[in-house]
């Protein structure tokens, strides 16, 4: 325990940890010091001088910036003296010299720190009569971010964020003095997965997003706190709506999870809610055509089917359900069937994971307190972006990072040790004796380790990751963070008894085993490596009911398509994240047409069929979800709504994943997913819909030679399918391997376990001849 220091601020004695910044110590004691550049998650710079306070020194009282001054014992500080007030007025007058008076058309107006602080601390009148500085208004610094340099007060929050936090410094100060501006390098736009955060932390309206620009005034917004279900991180978010339309998502500072940051997909992937192509009414397929019907008719038709005790029902559940939805399906399956039921999750990577009795599961915060982090999983930056930020943060704090495999190349830049293609083969096996690697001896053996483990690609054998796990378990004091990346996967683990992955779905489901299949919020035909197999399986079934927001490649094959309300702002529930932290999902906007929640649909259906239903309301389901937990720790609504639990409640549980063990499928393709892909929701979110449109593959050097690929484009050919893609020759891929982002359009249609022919593009050849 470090000793506290005492200081006197405005005549009040306060206590603080040593080494804290004065502005932070005051903030903790409820004394607010105005500021623009200082942000508690960024390093201090002392750019704006707004936080000047008077501190007593042997030479008398002097003005110091409180954001760069550490507290000291018996320090005497005045934050409200006349001198301080004069200084604040002066600073604001300078800041306002070049700041345009376009508040009436500025998105930030109403929630603008510059506006607020000018009201509170500024000079009443302006003495500036000269011409203000002019820049072109606004410029696009990326597809989704706009920059108005006239409004910028040069606080460096955005540039520091992109340098320190997200690690892609594509914006910087250009020029000097009066000419200083924030800008990008020509033809090098601010393409960052985290760029939206800079808009949120900008203390003026200099950075705005194309998505929210001119949509609403802050005082018209309704807001609520919720949880993002985009990946398994479960970032805390604030939803903003106006006139019943969702308009904006902001990151909320949840210390244990996202610390205020969210990825751009999480921030802008809500626009689909307002899309015209959203399903509003249930559809029934008649003569191969969908016709709109009333939801009552769906209930009556389906209830006839499930009344028959012999009906064999199966479930393919996506990852965007709430825990309550999962429980509703569990209840349903228990009522209609005596035998134990399996639930198939829409995840082609699902495997048993590491949840055994002698395994300690890691929390996200353990990343900061361990000696080293060992990663072998999917590409975390693409799949769990904010976890990537937390790893970056840990590395910045001195934690060592050991990364295995070409699958996590994005981490190699910050890794202390990166075991690339020399160590991990094209079969995704570690070909060297791990215990003999020098760096492992130095950094890992005998240390406190947080291991982030998961499968990198569906074709990888389960055994390969298990081997690394066993080594770590034996030789280190390790905690494991299982890196399942999809949405509410952990909620499914928590609420469902027996979950399986898509590979088991392909093996188990047939006309014999299934009369009625529910596909909920899942598009495995559009987005999995089993695309073609699943398509033919579904085609062969009698009745398939798809519940989703949009019609997609999977629902096209269904007999009924039910429009459901989105988990993003259209329903209430709970979400469980990667560290088994359960937090609240809240409702802010109504859902369109005859949409229903998943749980409403299934509960109504059961009632229609005359079954005895024990869980008739969301509260019932919520209670049921956590019935085996003690009241005091159970994340039921009542507990989650307590102020102390807003950040969620952690209840680690050991899930039963009965996924069958997979061995390596020998293929020269390594499939992964990019953050922006061709999912239905991204496609219908205008501002980000084009970000995932580039079709490309990465080819290892040996294959580039084999197929005579030098630069440009090539065509992939399998049976009758031909797709032209651009390609990059990758030095980090092992020989004989091709990386395919399978969530890009058309690329999902290939069966990558079979041979695919690759030829350099004709166009390119023609050019070479000339």
């Amino acid at each position, binding site marked *: 325990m470090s000793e506290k220091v005492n200081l006197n601020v405005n005549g009040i004695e306060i206590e603080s940890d040593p080494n804290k910044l004065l502005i932070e110590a005051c903030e903790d004691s409820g004394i607010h010091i105005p500021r623009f550049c200082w942000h508690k998650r960024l390093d201090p710079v002392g750019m704006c001088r707004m936080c000047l306070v008077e501190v007593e020194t042997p030479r008398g009282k002097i003005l110091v910036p409180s954001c760069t001054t550490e507290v000291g014992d018996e320090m005497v500080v005045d934050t409200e003296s006349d001198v301080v007030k004069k200084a604040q007025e002066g600073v604001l007058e300078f800041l306002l010299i070049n700041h345009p008076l376009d508040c009436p058309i500025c998105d930030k107006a109403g929630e603008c720190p510059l506006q607020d602080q000018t009201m509170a601390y500024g000079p009443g009148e302006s003495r500036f009569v000269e011409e203000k500085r002019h820049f072109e208004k606004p410029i696009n610094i990326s597809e989704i971010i706009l920059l108005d340099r006239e409004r910028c007060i040069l606080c460096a929050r955005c540039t520091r964020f992109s340098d320190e936090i997200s690690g*892609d*410094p*594509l*914006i*910087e*100060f*250009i*020029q*000097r003095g009066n000419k200083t501006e924030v*800008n*990008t*390098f*020509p033809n*090098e736009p601010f393409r960052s997965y985290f760029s939206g955060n800079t808009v949120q932390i900008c203390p003026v309206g200099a950075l705005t997003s194309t998505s929210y620009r001119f949509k609403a005034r802050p005082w018209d917004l309704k807001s609520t706190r919720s949880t993002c279900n985009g990946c398994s991180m479960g970032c805390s978010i604030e939803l903003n709506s106006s006139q019943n339309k969702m308009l904006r998502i902001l990151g909320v500072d949840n210390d244990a999870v996202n610390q205020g940051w969210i990825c751009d997909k999480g921030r802008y992937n809500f626009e689909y809610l307002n899309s015209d192509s959203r399903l509003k009414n249930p559809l029934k397929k008649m003569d191969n055509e969908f016709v709109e019907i009333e939801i009552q008719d769906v209930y009556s038709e389906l209830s006839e089917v499930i009344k028959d005790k012999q009906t064999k029902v199966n479930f393919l559940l996506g990852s965007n359900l709430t825990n309550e939805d999962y429980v509703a399906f569990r209840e349903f399956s228990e009522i209609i069937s005596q035998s134990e039921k399996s639930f198939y999750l829409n995840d082609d990577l699902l495997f048993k994971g590491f949840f055994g009795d002698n395994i300690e599961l890691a929390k996200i915060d353990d990343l900061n307190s361990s000696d080293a982090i060992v990663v072998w999983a999917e590409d975390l930056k693409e799949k769990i972006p904010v976890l990537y930020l937390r790893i970056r943060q840990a590395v910045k704090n001195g934690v060592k990072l050991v990364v295995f495999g070409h699958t996590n190349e994005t981490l190699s830049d910050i890794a202390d040790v990166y075991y690339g293609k020399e160590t991990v083969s094209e079969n995704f096996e570690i070909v060297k004796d791990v215990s003999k690697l020098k760096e492992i001896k130095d950094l890992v053996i005998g240390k406190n380790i947080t291991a982030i483990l998961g499968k990198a690609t569906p074709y990888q054998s389960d055994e390969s990751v298990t081997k690394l796990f066993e080594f770590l378990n034996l030789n280190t004091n390790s905690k494991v963070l299982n890196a399942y990346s999809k949405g509410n996967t952990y909620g499914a683990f928590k609420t469902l008894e027996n979950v399986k992955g898509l590979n088991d779905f392909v093996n188990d489901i047939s006309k014999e085993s299934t009369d009625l299949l529910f596909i909920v919020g899942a598009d495995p035909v559009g987005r999995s490596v089993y695309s073609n197999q699943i398509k033919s399986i579904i085609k062969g079934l009698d009745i398939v009911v798809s519940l989703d927001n949009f019609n997609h490649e999977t629902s096209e094959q269904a007999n009924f398509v039910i429009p459901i309300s989105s988990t993003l702002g259209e329903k209430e529930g709970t979400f469980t994240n990667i560290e088994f932290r359960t937090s609240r999902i809240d409702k802010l906007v109504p859902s369109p047409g005859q949409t229903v929640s998943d749980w409403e649909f299934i509960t109504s259906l059961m009632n229609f069929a005359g079954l005895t239903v024990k869980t008739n309301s969301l509260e019932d389901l919520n209670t049921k979800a956590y019935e085996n937990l003690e009241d005091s720790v159970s994340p039921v609504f009542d507990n989650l709504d307590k102020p102390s639990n807003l950040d969620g409640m952690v209840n680690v549980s050991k899930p039963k994943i009965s996924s069958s063990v997979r061995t390596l499928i020998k293929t020269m393709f390594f499939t992964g997913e990019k953050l922006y892909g061709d999912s239905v929701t991204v496609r219908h979110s205008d501002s980000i819909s084009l970000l995932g449109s580039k079709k490309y593959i990465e080819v290892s050097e040996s294959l580039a030679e084999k197929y005579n690929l030098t630069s440009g484009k090539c065509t992939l050919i399998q049976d009758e399918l031909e797709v032209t893609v651009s390609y990059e020759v990758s030095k980090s891929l092992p020989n004989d391997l091709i990386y395919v982002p399978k969530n890009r359009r058309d690329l999902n249609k290939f069966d990558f376990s079979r041979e695919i022919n690759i030829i350099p593009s004709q166009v390119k050849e023609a050019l070479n001849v000339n």
Partner: protein
Amino acid sequence: MSWDDKLLKQAKKIIKLYPQKRSAIGPLLHLAQSKDGYISDDSIAVISELVGITEVQVKSVSTFYSMYKQEPTGKYLLSVCKSISCEINNSSEVINKVQEFTGLNNNETDEEKLFTFEAVECIGACGGAPAVQVNYETVEGVTSENAVNLCKWLKETKPEVVVADEMQENFGGIKSFDWAIQDSSGATSTAPGFQTLKTTKVKK
């Protein structure tokens, strides 16, 4: 890469002098300046790759310092001091005459790409005011007449290397110090002449 092997080799030598690669960015920018007469975006891309930071970070440094030119300069960069000592000793007259002779406003380059003119803040030669620099080679005690003569000489002979001592002898007056070691090496480009950068040469 738009830099030739010789330049790249030199750049790598410079990088090795620093414990962190990115610390070499200053001298590398001088190298870029000596190559093109300004910091081109191509050079910025090369430097960013060499030292492992993003292009915009290099751009940020290069636009901060006024000695890294953002526009192409002429063969000779004429910098006339306008700070207080020189101003008292009539540097405004020097500036006027040089501008008259070259026909250039501040920070302009002529069409033949011979001269770039700039009036600059203190160049550390207050004792020998008014002072002038040609490609950062300082000449002190320059009268307005001699300044024009200096320009004429540059225009007529177009020397590859400009040497401070030589110009001082022919066009200078009182020097700040008279005990400095004789130095017959001078600048070969509009980057300052540094041995490590090989932007300096002995005039034969």
